[in-house]
C-alpha cells in the first residue's frame, strides 16, 4: 500500500467522523426547532402577541363634585382640543407656523409644545392648544389636508359653574408636572391634555375623582407606532364627590361679602358639616384650569386683598375679643365665681405697665356676664391672669383652636395657642405674667384662622367636640361631649346671647322668631403709641385701608337651640360689630328665611360703604396694571432686541 492509500484510509475515517458530527449538529438543530415551535410554541405565541398588541389609554371622565343637595360645583363640559403627532407631522416648525394663522399660539404655548416634544417618543401626540372655540375647531377641520399629523380632538374640560366663590374649595386643574410623572410612572399622565387636581378638593380627592382609564388595543410596531386598532374598552368615570357645602348659601354669602376682603365659615353645630366656606375676593377657577394668562396671574398676586390665599384656613389673625369665651371658660374652670367682680376704670396696672381697656372711661364694676356683654378688657386681664396662661391654652385647645383638621383642602395654618411650654420651646424664654394679659383678650401671641373660630363657636354652642366635615361620606357620627362642665358653657352661652340683646352685637339681631348668640372682636393691626393715646386715638376710618383693624364676629343660632355656628372676618373692616355683624345677620337669616335675606341684599349692594370699596379696588387695580405695564416696558427697553424667528 502506498502512502497515498494509507493517507486516504486515515482521511476517510476522520472525514466520516466529521460527517457524523455534522449530521449530529443537524439533528440537534432540528430537535431545537421542534422544541421552540412545538413544545414551547404556545408560550412564544403569547409572547409574540404581547409584543404585537399595545394598550393605548383613553382618559377617564372625571367625577363631579356636588353640593349637599346634589347641585354641581365641578363638572365636565365638552371641549375641543388640538393635538399633533410629531412623527406624522414631519416638519413640526412648518406645521406650527401654518397653524398659527388659524389658532393664536403665544410664545409660551410654543415653548410648552417644544418642551413636551423633547424627550418623548415621536409617536406620542402632544397638545397644541386646549379649549378651542367651535369656529376655530371647524376651521381646522376644513384645512386638515394641509396639516399632516394634526388632529382636532373632542374631549372634556373641567367647569366650575359657581365661579370664584368656589375657587379655594375646588382648587383647579392643570397639566401634571415632570416630577409627578417621575413619582408615579402613571402612563395616564402622559396623555395629551390630561390634567390633575392642583389645589383644594380637586387635589385632595384626585384619586377618587380621576376614574379608571379606558383602553384601545392596537397593533403596534416595536417602535410603538400604531398600525391598526383592534378593540376598545370604555373608561370608568371617576366617583362623584358630595360636599357638605350648600351651594345657594355659598353663593349668597359671596354676594353678601361684596367688595370686602373677608372670610365667612358656616358650620352645623352638631355634625360639623361646613355649609359655607367663602374667602373673597377669589380667582375664577375656570380661568385657572384653562391656563391663566401672565397678566391675570400678576394682577392676582399683587392684589392687596390676596385673592390667591384661602383666608378661611390660610389666614391667621389675632382673634381679639372673639377669644374671650375661651378665656371665660378658663376663668370658670379655675374655680372663679361668675359673680366675682373687678373695677374697670379704663385701664389695668400690672408689672409697672398700664393695660388699656377699649373703653377709655371704664366700665365700672364688672362680672363675667357684664364682662362679656361690654367686652370689658379689664375683667379678662384680671381674672385671666388669675386663671393662668396654661388654663387658657387648655380651654382653647379643648375648643378646637390651634389645630389642623382633616379636610380635603390645602394651606391650613395652625395659628398659635400659646402656653408656658410653647414659649420655652419657641423662644427659649420663660413666660412673663404680663403676657397672659394680652393673650386673655385674644391679642399677643394668640393667632387663629376663621375656620378654627367657627369650630370653637360650634363647640361652645353644642357642648360637643364637633369636627369640621367637608365631604359627605355616610351619616355624621355624634361627637363626644366636651370635658368642660355644662354649667360653665351655659354661662358663656348666656353671655353671648346678651351680647346680641344688650351689647356690642346689636346689629346682629335677627327677627322676632329666633335669636342669635354672638361675640364681636377687633384685632389690632398696628400698635397704638402712648403719644397717640394722649391726644386721642385716631378714628379707624381716617386711616389707610391696610392700617385699619381686622373685624371679627362669631355667632350661633337659634340661641335657645343652636343649629348653625359661624365666624366672619373682614380684613381691615374696623369694629366687628359694625361691619361683620350685618353680614353674619344676613347670612344667618338666609338659612332660616332666604326670601328676607335676598331682599336685604338689594339695599346692601347699593350702600355707600360697598360702593366706595368697589371704587377703591377699581382704581387700585388700574394703578397696579399701569405699574406692571411700565415695568414690562422698562424691562423690554433694557433687554437686548430679540431676533424674530
Amino acid at each position, binding site marked *: 500500500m502506498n502512502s497515498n492509500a494509507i493517507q486516504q484510509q486515515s482521511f476517510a475515517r476522520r472525514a466520516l467522523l466529521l460527517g457524523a458530527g455534522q449530521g449530529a449538529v443537524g439533528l440537534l438543530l432540528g430537535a431545537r426547532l421542534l422544541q421552540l415551535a412545538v413544545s414551547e410554541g404556545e408560550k412564544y405565541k403569547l409572547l409574540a402577541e404581547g409584543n*404585537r398588541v399595545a394598550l393605548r389609554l383613553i382618559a377617564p371622565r372625571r367625577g363631579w363634585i356636588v353640593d349637599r343637595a346634589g347641585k354641581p360645583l365641578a363638572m365636565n363640559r365638552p371641549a375641543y382640543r388640538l393635538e399633533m403627532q410629531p412623527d406624522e407631522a414631519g416638519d413640526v416648525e412648518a406645521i406650527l407656523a401654518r397653524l398659527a394663522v388659524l389658532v393664536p399660539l403665544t410664545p409660551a404655548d410654543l415653548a410648552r409644545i417644544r418642551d413636551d416634544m423633547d424627550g418623548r417618543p415621536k409617536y406620542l401626540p402632544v397638545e397644541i392648544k386646549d379649549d378651542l372655540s367651535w369656529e376655530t375647531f371647524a376651521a381646522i377641520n376644513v384645512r386638515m389636508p394641509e396639516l399632516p399629523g394634526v388632529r382636532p380632538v373632542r374631549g372634556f374640560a373641567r367647569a366650575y359653574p359657581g365661579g370664584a366663590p368656589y375657587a379655594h374649595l375646588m382648587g383647579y386643574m392643570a397639566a401634571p408636572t415632570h416630577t409627578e410623572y417621575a413619582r408615579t410612572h402613571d402612563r395616564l399622565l402622559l396623555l395629551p391634555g390630561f390634567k390633575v387636581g392642583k389645589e383644594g378638593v380637586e387635589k385632595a380627592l384626585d384619586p377618587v375623582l380621576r376614574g379608571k382609564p379606558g383602553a384601545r388595543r392596537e397593533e403596534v410596531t416595536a417602535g410603538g407606532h400604531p398600525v391598526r386598532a383592534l378593540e376598545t374598552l370604555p373608561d370608568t368615570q371617576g366617583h362623584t364627590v358630595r360636599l357638605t357645602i350648600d351651594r345657594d348659601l355659598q353663593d349668597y354669602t359671596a354676594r353678601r361679602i361684596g367688595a370686602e376682603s373677608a372670610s365667612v365659615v358656616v358650620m352645623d353645630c352638631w355634625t360639623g358639616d361646613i355649609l359655607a366656606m367663602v374667602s373673597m375676593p377669589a380667582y375664577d377657577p375656570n380661568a385657572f384650569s384653562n391656563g391663566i394668562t401672565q397678566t391675570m396671574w400678576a394682577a392676582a398676586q399683587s392684589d392687596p386683598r390676596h385673592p390667591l390665599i384661602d383666608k378661611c384656613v390660610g389666614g391667621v389673625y389675632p382673634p381679639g375679643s372673639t377669644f374671650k369665651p375661651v378665656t371665660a371658660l378658663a376663668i370658670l374652670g379655675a374655680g372663679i365665681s361668675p359673680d366675682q367682680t373687678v373695677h374697670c376704670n379704663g385701664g389695668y396696672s400690672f408689672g409697672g405697665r398700664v393695660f388699656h381697656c377699649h373703653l377709655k372711661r371704664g366700665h365700672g364694676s364688672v362680672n363675667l356676664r357684664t364682662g362679656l356683654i361690654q367686652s370689658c378688657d379689664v375683667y379678662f386681664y384680671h381674672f385671666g391672669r388669675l386663671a393662668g396662661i396654661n388654663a387658657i391654652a387648655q380651654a382653647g385647645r379643648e375648643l378646637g383652636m390651634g389645630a389642623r383638621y382633616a379636610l380635603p383642602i390645602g394651606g391650613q395654618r395652625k395659628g398659635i395657642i400659646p402656653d408656658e411650654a410653647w414659649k420655652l420651646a419657641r423662644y427659649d424664654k420663660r413666660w412673663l405674667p404680663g403676657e397672659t394679659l394680652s393673650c386673655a383678650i385674644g391679642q399677643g401671641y394668640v393667632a387663629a384662622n376663621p375656620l378654627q373660630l367657627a369650630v370653637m363657636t360650634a363647640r361652645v354652642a353644642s357642648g360637643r367636640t364637633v369636627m369640621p366635615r367637608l365631604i359627605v361620606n355616610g351619616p355624621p357620627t355624634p361627637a363626644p361631649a366636651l370635658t368642660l362642665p355644662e354649667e360653665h358653657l351655659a354661662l358663656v352661652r348666656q353671655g353671648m346671647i346678651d351680647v346680641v340683646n344688650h351689647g356690642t352685637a346689636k346689629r346682629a339681631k335677627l327677627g322676632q322668631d329666633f335669636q342669635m348668640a354672638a361675640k364681636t372682636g377687633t384685632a389690632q393691626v398696628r400698635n397704638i403709641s402712648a403719644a397717640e393715646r394722649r391726644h386721642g386715638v385716631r378714628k379707624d376710618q381716617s386711616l389707610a385701608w391696610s392700617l385699619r383693624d381686622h373685624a371679627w364676629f362669631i355667632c350661633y343660632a337659634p340661641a335657645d337651640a343652636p343649629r348653625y355656628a359661624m365666624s366672619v372676618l373682614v380684613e381691615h373692616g374696623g369694629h366687628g360689630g359694625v361691619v361683620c355683624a350685618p353680614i353674619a345677620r344676613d347670612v344667618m337669616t338666609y338659612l332660616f328665611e332666604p326670601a328676607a335675606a335676598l331682599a336685604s341684599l338689594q339695599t346692601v349692594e347699593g350702600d355707600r360703604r360697598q360702593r366706595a370699596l368697589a371704587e377703591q379696588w377699581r382704581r387700585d387695580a388700574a394703578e397696579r396694571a399701569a405699574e406692571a405695564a411700565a415695568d414690562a416696558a422698562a424691562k423690554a427697553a433694557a433687554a437686548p432686541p430679540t431676533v424674530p424667528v
Partner: protein
Amino acid sequence: MTSALPLWARTTPWGMIAAVAALGAFGLLVLYSAAGGSLHPWAMAQGVRFAVLIVAMIALAQVDPALWRKYAYWIYAAVLLALIGVEALGAVSGGSRRWLDTGVLRLQPSEFMKLAIVLALARYFHNLPRTHIRSLSALVIPFALILAPTALVMAQPDLGTAMMIAVGGVAVLFLAGLPWWWFAGGLAAIGGAVPVLFHFLHGYQARRVTIFLDPGADPRGAGYHITQSKIAIGSGGLFGKGFLQGTQSHLDYLPERHTDFIFATMAEEWGVAGGVFILLCFGVVLWWGMGVSMRARTPFARLAAAGLTMTLFFYVAINLLMVMGLAPVVGIPLPLVSYGGSAMMTVLIALAIVMSVAREADTG
C-alpha cells in the same frame, strides 16, 4: 455513453446546484417578505447578485485543482497582507475595522481568509511526507499559519470570523492525520482556558456570552436579540403564520431580520417546515462536499474539499445555533440566505473549488 451535453455540463453537479439555488430562491422570498412585501431594498439586489455569482461559480469550477494548489501559499500571503492592511489603514466600520476600501470595491479580507487558510494548509500537508506527520514540526508551521490570521481578525475585533478561521484550519489538521491525542488535549486545554479567555474579551463580546447564558437577565437590553429571535421561531409553530404574515419581523421586534436573524424571519412565516427545508438543502450540499473529498485523488484535493465543506458547515451551524439560542450572538450570517454579498461569495467560491475537485475525481 456519450451525451449531447458538453463535458463541463456533464461534470457539473446539478443536484448540489439545485440545492444551492433552492436556498438562494427561498432566501429571496424571505427577503421580499422582510421588506414588507417589496422587492426593495433587499430582494432585487440580492437576486441579481445571486444570479451573477452562481454563474461565476460554475465558470470558476472549470479551473484545474492543481492551479489552486500551485497558488495556495500566494493566495494565503496576499490575504494575510490585506488583513495587515486593514489593521494599518482600514476604514473604521461599525466600531471595528474589517473592510479594506480600495476605492472601487470594499473588500473584507477576513472573509477570504476562511478559504485561504484551508488551501494553504491543504497544500502544506500535500507535500509533507507521511513519516513526518507525527513530528512536532508538522504542528509548528500549520499552527503559525492558523495563528497569524486568527490573531489579526481577533484584533479587529471580530470574534466570530476569527473562530471560523481557527476551526476551519484545525479541521484540516485533523483530516490531515495529526495524532488524535493532540486534538483531545487541545480540546481539554481550550475547555480549561475558556474562563481565562473570557477575561480578555471585549466588553460587548463578554456581554454577549453572559447574555447567552441567561437571556432573561436583560430582555430589553443586550438579551433582546436572542429573546425576540426565539419568540419569532417559537410562535411560527409547525407551518408558520403564512407568507407576509410575520408580526415579529414586520413590526420591527426582530433585529437584523434580513441578515443574521433571517432564519427567525423565515421560521415565523414558514414554521418548522421551512426550517427543515433549509436544513435539508444544506444537508444535500454538505453530503455532496464530503462525498467529493472521499473520492478525491490527491491529498490536496481531499483536504481542500473536506476543509471547505467544513467551512460551509461552520457557517451554517454557528448561525443557526445562535439564532435558536444555543450559542452566543456572534455576527455570522446564514450563507446563501442572508442579505449581503460577502458570505455568499465566500461560500460560492468554496463550492466552486470543491466542484473542480469533483470533476478531476470523476473524469480522471
